[in-house]
């Protein structure tokens, strides 16, 4: 099983389950899937970025085989922005501590 490597900066494997040791009482985890707007099919290999309430870049990951992505954020308002070969999409989310799920649909 892949684990999250806290020493480096590369995006951890987005297909991995939430690593043991992540305390959902303390962490604000934003997770979800990138899908194609027309078919609803998952989009793998999309570049998903998390923008803060001011629209500033916070982090970027590449979606996993089933379109999954995950961020460790802080409580508040966030924007998810996805770029892929199938097009692009945006989703707004308000997250609190624990798990917040969101779908980002992409289209040309």
């Amino acid at each position, binding site marked *: 099983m892949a684990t999250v490597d806290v020493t480096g900066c590369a*995006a951890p494997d987005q297909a991995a389950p939430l690593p043991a040791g992540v305390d959902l009482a303390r962490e604000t985890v934003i997770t979800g899937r990138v899908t194609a707007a027309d078919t609803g099919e998952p989009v793998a290999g999309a570049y998903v970025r998390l923008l803060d309430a001011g629209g500033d870049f916070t982090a970027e990951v590449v979606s996993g085989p089933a379109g999954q992505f995950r961020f460790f954020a802080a409580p508040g308002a966030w924007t998810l922005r996805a770029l892929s070969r199938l097009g692009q999409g945006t989703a707004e989310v308000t997250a609190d501590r624990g798990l917040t799920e969101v779908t980002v649909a992409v289209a040309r």
Partner: protein
Amino acid sequence: MSRETALVTADWAEKNLGAPGIVFIEVDEDTSAYDAGHIPGAIKLDWKKDLQDPVRRDFLNKQQFEALLSERGVANDDTVILYGGNNNWFAAYAYWYFKLYGHRDVRLLDGGRKKWELDNRPLSTDEVRRPATVYTAQEPDTSIRAFRDEVIAAIGTKNLVDVRSPDEYAGRLLAPAHLPQEQAQRAGHIPTAVNVPWSKAANEDGTFKSDDELRELYAAAGLDESKPTIAYCRIGERSSHTWFVLRELLGYRDVKNYDGSWTEYGSLVGVPVALGDAPGEA
């Protein structure tokens, strides 16, 4: 330095695939992306396994770097084109590293792996082996690398640029948001450092903004071009991206990358730390 000598476009790169004297190198912390498909003919360097000392927190010494490039088949007079994921963070780090050891002609692929993929350009899974060379590195050029005592002395005197996200700068987050937040070091930033997130220098597809946009960005942040500048982030890769912009694209004369960055500074005993969105006092 300038855009013409430091950067190549994806179009230029695609036209020069396989050209003699040009070596493409993909650099990432995790090379699984390379293994699943890389620019045809490109070799890989693993930021951690290949470029960091396996025991001490430092990078390879001159002899280790020479051995690495010789074994991978990179020659002193090759034009090295670096690219990678994470918006070229690790490729920019490798660029700085190649410069530190005096490689003559090294360039970044604008937009890195992301633009290449989004453009649907060719990727290959073929194994790439280059015949070994005898590579000779120069002594490390410490005019582009900052160490911690120099950083502490720079508070209130030199330009300090913190290129992390605003939330990391203010101390609300300790790491980029794709990583868990529980860390040993204190949160915050080096007093008097201005916050210009690395991402402000890049377009959404990972390419660099124009020179005019970049110059305006750092001027608006209060960076004094006549003063020496030290850039830092968390572990020194995002700040390599900004170091590249300031020194290689904009031609600022004295710019150093502090690769110890926040994981070192935020763990030091007794140093000043500023919290919140303002730079703070010296």
